[in-house]
């Protein structure tokens, strides 16, 4: 006897996904085909286990891996800029490649693909963000900030600040100060 089965791939896949997710006790929401959203935080082990389970069926977690890596890149950069003073002197490409165990070319391409900006731009953005934070804290002078963030000169930092934000560091500081005064007045 020969029969024909009309597979509902979507239903099967969804059923499979549902089983595996339930096994791992992950709470989720189905957004569309092959697209789910976790409604609570999922540990890396669980994600790895899910990936392994799916591998048996020739499937794998696609976007997630990429975005996790991107997130890792971001976290590493933020950590490097904000917390790891000692490594700021090391070239960021080398630093990232070592920390994340991938070639810089791969990381760079992946990052641009997902975020529409380059790693370099992201680093600059973070550095300028850190500069803003330091400026508003009034703890360091611009010269000290430039030194701390490994800029060759204050002028270099100023230029990058101006290029990134469109305003000069001193204008930024002035605006933030005035804003605080204004909000104090309104209170």
């Amino acid at each position, binding site marked *: 006897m020969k029969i024909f089965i009309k597979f509902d791939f979507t239903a099967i896949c969804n059923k499979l996904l549902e089983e595996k997710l339930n096994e791992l006790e992950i709470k989720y929401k189905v957004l569309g085909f092959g697209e789910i959203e976790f409604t609570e935080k999922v540990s890396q082990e669980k994600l790895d286990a899910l990936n392994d389970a799916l591998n048996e069926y020739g499937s794998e977690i696609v976007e997630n891996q990429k975005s996790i890596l991107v997130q890792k890149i971001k976290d590493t950069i933020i950590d490097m800029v904000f917390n790891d003073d000692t490594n700021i002197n090391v070239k960021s490409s080398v630093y990232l490649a070592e920390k994340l165990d991938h070639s810089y070319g791969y990381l760079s391409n992946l990052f641009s693909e997902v975020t529409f900006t380059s790693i370099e731009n992201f680093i600059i953005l973070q550095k300028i963000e850190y500069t803003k934070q330091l400026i508003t804290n009034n703890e360091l002078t611009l010269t000290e900030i430039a030194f701390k963030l490994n800029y060759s000169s204050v002028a270099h930092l100023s230029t990058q600040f101006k290029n990134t934000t469109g*305003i000069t560091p001193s204008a930024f500081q002035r605006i*933030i100060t005035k*804003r605080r005064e204004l909000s104090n007045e309104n209170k």
Partner: protein
Amino acid sequence: MQEEDVFIILADDDEDDRLFFEEAFDELKINTKVATFNDGVELMDYLNKENSLLPNILFLDLNMPKKSGKQCLQEIKKEARFKDIAIAIYSTSASEEDIENTFVMGANVYIKKPNDFKQLKKVLSNVVTINWQYHTSGLNKDNFLLRL
């Protein structure tokens, strides 16, 4: 990338500018939804409705009849419900006074309307991208100042 559409509002009394603005976003192919209002009063009426969908980014022309961009900015900044809206001033003027004043009043972005369509597209995409960065990378929104 599965992001929800970026919801963008422009309040500008100038018809041509609204046209350029909408066309620019059309061509940008970012997932955006654009709404426009003809003046400040219309805009505030919409925002103040309880169940209105609030924009991610609000573009404000400074020089509008009935209610100026600065007045809108002031009203928006008073309302806690609007605290997550990024505000971009979108003006012909680039006087330092206007720029500094609106920044102090709480604007995040100041755009001098470009005189080239390509430039306009670049500027708008820049604003959306940076805003997205602030949104996703946990940056301090208080420090979000951008002049283009």
